[in-house]
């Protein structure tokens, strides 16, 4: 089971803060997972179309789309950070 978190403007655009799903067989990495999510939820396209506006973390570390996935991974999608 993958746990996926969404934060800030990404959370608002996808209209959820979290979801869980079984790691699909054809999903090997983050790029694949995004394709899968876009099939499940077409409205995700508004935020996932511009790579510069979305950051990805796997197990709380920022990664790129080539990052491989394992069952049990904690994934998060969020915009560039603006703390401080």
């Amino acid at each position, binding site marked *: 089971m993958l746990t996926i*978190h969404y*934060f*800030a*403007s990404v959370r608002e655009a996808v209209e959820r803060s979290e979801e869980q799903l079984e790691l699909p067989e054809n999903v090997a990495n983050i790029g694949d997972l995004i394709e899968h999510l876009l099939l499940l939820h077409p409205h995700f396209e508004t935020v996932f179309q511009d790579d510069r506006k979305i950051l990805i*973390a796997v197990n*709380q570390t*920022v990664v790129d789309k080539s990052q491989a996935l394992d069952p049990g991974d904690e994934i*998060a999608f*969020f*915009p*560039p*950070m*603006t*703390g*401080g």
Partner: protein
Amino acid sequence: MISIQREDFSLEQEYQKLRTEAGDVGAIVTFTGIVRELYGGTGDKRGAAKTDTLYLEHYPGMTETSLANIVGAAQKKWPLLAVRVIHRVGELKPQEQIVFVGTASGHRQDAFDAAQYIMDFLKSRAPFWKKQSSGKDSHWVDARVSDAEALARWQDS
């Protein structure tokens, strides 16, 4: 050493803790970030808008880990005697304190450099996001180009 909290903090208390923890300290630098009423202006495409509320969201767990990594990297680069980082989350009003970084060292340059390094990385690498409300309008604050540039200078060193 690192706190993510809704409550306000006291500079005086943090300073005294740094002094005590640091022992034979020569230099203490503190940075306090405060919510401005007129956000934006120079360097922000939106121009200035009066802030009524600033909402701070974060990624619990990853926030603490990323700040611990940033502080750990600073401790490797400079001989620090004590470090303290506080970041507030939730709803804040103009002129409220939002972030604190305190560094204690034997010499001033190390304390200054470490405090700036921690702030530069905190701004762009710790998972916090600001939403600004001005009257009926509210929007997520854009990342600043100047903050990305501030990170770049640490690449050489």
